[in-house]
């Protein structure tokens, strides 16, 4: 009987010892909660557009570490920038990512999201999600890291394409060509464009966006 007892107590003790490293919620749960909230907001017809947008932004703000993303996106240019420029970039980048993420999710409001897998390695993890539509499945992976017992997103990978990597290449080119202030100017312009009422669904027979 003692043997039986000790056999069970050991896993329990091990589990207890392991706990300090673990967060209250698993990475998948963290993402699932956020995604569910966002989808619920999208599906709520009663909400007016502004309230919905503000609430979605709050959710995204709470989960995405924009500073980490900004640093990574700018790479060497981050170091070259002043503290003030860095902050400006973070602010603009935050707005762009929010717009971008919400814009993409919106198209899939009525689809189901599955959470097939999660890989945790120390303080980093990847949460695999799948958007299931009638004609295809789209894998979206969230890379998260643990800080103060909470998981924060630092990259989103859509069909194998890391958003941060992608942004980085483009932004690098723009900085090379037009300097840091040029980049900031373009970002501001893009945000204005996205916020304006005429930013429909990209139905532009005029094709190109202003360069």
């Amino acid at each position, binding site marked *: 009987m003692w043997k039986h007892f000790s056999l069970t107590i050991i896993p329990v003790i091990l589990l207890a010892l392991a706990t300090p490293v673990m967060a209250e919620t698993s990475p998948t749960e963290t993402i699932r909660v956020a995604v569910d909230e966002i989808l619920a907001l999208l599906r709520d017809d009663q909400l007016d557009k502004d309230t919905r947008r503000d609430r979605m932004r709050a959710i995204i703000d709470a989960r995405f570490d924009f*500073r980490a993303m900004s640093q990574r996106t700018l790479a060497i240019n981050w170091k070259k920038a002043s503290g003030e420029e860095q902050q400006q970039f973070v602010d603009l980048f935050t707005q762009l990512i929010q717009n971008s993420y919400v814009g993409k999710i919106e198209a899939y409001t009525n689809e189901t999201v599955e959470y097939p897998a999660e890989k945790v390695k120390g303080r980093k993890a990847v949460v695999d999600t799948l958007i299931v539509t009638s004609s295809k499945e789209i894998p979206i992976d969230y890379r998260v890291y643990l800080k103060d017992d909470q998981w924060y997103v630092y990259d989103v990978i859509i069909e194998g394409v890391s958003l941060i990597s992608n942004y980085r290449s483009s932004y690098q080119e723009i900085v090379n060509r037009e300097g840091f202030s040029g*980049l900031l100017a373009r970002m501001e312009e*893009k945000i204005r464009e996205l916020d304006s009422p005429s930013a429909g669904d990209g139905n532009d027979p005029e094709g*190109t966006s202003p360069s």
Partner: protein
Amino acid sequence: MNKLLLLLMLLAGPLSAYGLDIDPESIGGTTATTTPDSENSDEFEDFLFEDEEDIEVSDPLEPLNRGIFWFNDKLYFYLLKPVARGYRRVVPEPWRVAVQNVFSNLKTPVRFVNAGLQGKFGDAGNELTRFVVNTTIGIGGLFDTAKDHFDLRKTDEDFGQTLGYYGVGPGFYLVLPVLGPSDVRDGASLLVDTRMNLLYYMAEGRTYWGLRAYDKVNDVSLDKDTYESIKKDALDPYLFIRDAYMQYRRNKIEN
């Protein structure tokens, strides 16, 4: 190939041609900048992204590519999209999904052969089973019965991936007229894969091309404005799509 990104890849949008060299990027080392933010924000860079690699993209034909990108963009907005929209209004989704299934079924040999060439015999067998099930029970491929009832999912393989698997690099970036983003390896592979599409042997001349076009229109009708959303967000859609394409292909090859 996954339709979403294929579509994404499919169309392009220009901006004036910038002749530009790509600087291979250095992944940030550690920094000295002080940030108003607390602790070790700069250490995050290393900790979070330490196992990142950069994709270096060779694009010596950039001015030409940008031109073709611009052309494809116009083609999309002035022709492909309006046609797809009209089609979408008239034909209900289930039918359009069925059409997509039929075309996809006909491309089985592409997936089957290329999986086999990469030693992925499980996947190859899977494709064969899917083909048989979908053609018989799925009535000529109209229904993806293999997925719906037997949970056998499609595995996307193509000759470009096979070449990549054997170490062939992408070569430089190419924007193909009408077809969109590609590279030397994948563009050449199209020649091979086209001939493994059963459709190639079932129709000729105008009918063949008409069906290929129909396949595309049908795909666009099922898409949710992927291309538009990319254009909307990106500061430079050409660059964005180029890098996305390269990452996407690399990821597919590594699976």
